[in-house]
């Protein structure tokens, strides 16, 4: 009974009708260049709004249009339809060319996350230069994740929301070919047989990427 009290003052005014909620979300998302999280949306909308529901209808409304409503992690944003990219060369930002090492490292982090530096090196068979990791952190495509609970407690890397946003992914689960790779056992972390060169240490018993994608 008492819990209602706090909400009462606002709920004197009923939540706006569904169509109005849609308009509001449309306006907020349109105005922002970055994805807006669901919780932020709800903070900005009047009390009592159900942003999640309005988002569903809004998303459907923009299907097939020149601008689409996309989901990025827990956030939402309007983006131009990918097939119209050719009209936009004026807006194209010349991005720094990534080295092959950087691209591969990025892919390994994305597909194997959370992943330690030693594991990245094990997969690529060469040392990962600090510049490479630096560059990916600077681009805000990868960040530090939880420490691995193994000897040395190595730090791990995971991909960010900005990464998802940049590559138009709703979540890391939607990475291309992820299912097939996992089915083929290529995302397992197999223990290195003793006596094998290369892999330094600390890469046993990794909890593994799977926990992120499983459920």
């Amino acid at each position, binding site marked *: 009974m008492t819990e209602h009290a706090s909400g009462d003052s606002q709920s004197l005014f009923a939540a706006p009708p569904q169509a109005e909620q849609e308009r509001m979300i449309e306006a907020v998302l*349109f*105005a*922002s*260049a*970055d994805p807006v999280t669901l919780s932020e949306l709800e903070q900005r909308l009047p009390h009592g709004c159900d942003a999640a529901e309005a988002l569903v209808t809004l998303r459907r409304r923009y299907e097939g249009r020149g601008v689409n409503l996309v989901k990025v992690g827990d956030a939402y*944003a*309007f*983006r*131009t*339809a*990918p097939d*119209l*990219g050719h009209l*936009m060369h004026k*807006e*194209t*930002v010349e*991005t720094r060319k990534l080295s*092959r*090492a950087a*691209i*591969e490292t*990025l*892919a*390994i982090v*994305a*597909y194997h996350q959370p992943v330690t530096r030693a594991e990245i090196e*094990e*997969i*690529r*068979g*060469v040392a990962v230069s600090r510049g490479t990791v630096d560059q990916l*952190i*600077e681009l805000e495509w990868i*960040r*530090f994740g939880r420490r691995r609970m193994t000897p040395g407690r190595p730090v791990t890397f995971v991909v960010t929301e900005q990464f998802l*946003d*940049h*590559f*138009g*992914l709703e979540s890391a689960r939607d*990475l*291309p*070919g992820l299912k097939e*790779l996992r089915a*083929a056992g*290529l995302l397992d972390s*197999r223990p*290195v*047989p*003793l*006596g*094998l*060169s*290369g892999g330094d240490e600390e890469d046993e018993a990794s909890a593994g990427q799977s926990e992120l994608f499983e459920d």
Partner: protein
Amino acid sequence: MADDWQEAKSTEAESVAARLAAEALIIDVDGFEGPLDLLLTLSRTQKVDLRKISVRELAEQYLIFVNKASALRIELAADYLVMAAWLAYLKSRLLLPPDPTEDGPSAEDLAAHLAFQLERLAAMREAAARLMARDQKGRDFFARGLPEDVTRKRKITYGATLMDLMQAYARIRTRDDFRPFVMDRDHVYTMEQALDRLRGLIGYAGQWTDLTSWLPQGWESNPMRRRSATAAHFAAVLELTKAGQVELRQGDVFAPLMVRQREGGR
């Protein structure tokens, strides 16, 4: 006989082909990102599924490559040589019948793991290519070009990024790293210092004098200081000799260095 000849000819042709392939690879040696990358490229010549690859054959190809590189006097990085040594070992173990008394993984396990590593690397390459081929923001699709700021309600928040935080911490902690470095200089006698000092002293060296007797006070006993001062003075004396101001003499290897002012030297 004919069969033998036939066989010899075909293996010769094969080895020629292998050699040519190896040479082509060597030209590209800078293009490889480490031994695993090279192995992956070599494995492509087997034209089989990576799961069916012959690790023995692959080891052979790799060793040919490394030999070729050394014959052409191309310096390979250490990890290529480590891999070569390991593959030679693996190859020999694959040829021998398994030793039941030996602990640890069998040669087949090791070979299987190598094949797995190659397959995984190839898979990640492909995944990376597919990732980069996706529609990308700022290239294929676009965010709002004109984020709106309708009412300018100025609310100041203070922001900092994780980078700022880590850099700040790093800055504080490196301060400590630097102090000992400055202290280290206490034990360093520079050649400039020695030169200055000796210029004032050579006037008194009419006789042959042992260089070590010229070390400054406080620099003779502590071994670290002594070494530094000796080196600095030796270098300074060479400098002065070159300038024709002193003469230098040493009776034997490791014998004391004797110094004397040069007659008529300026």
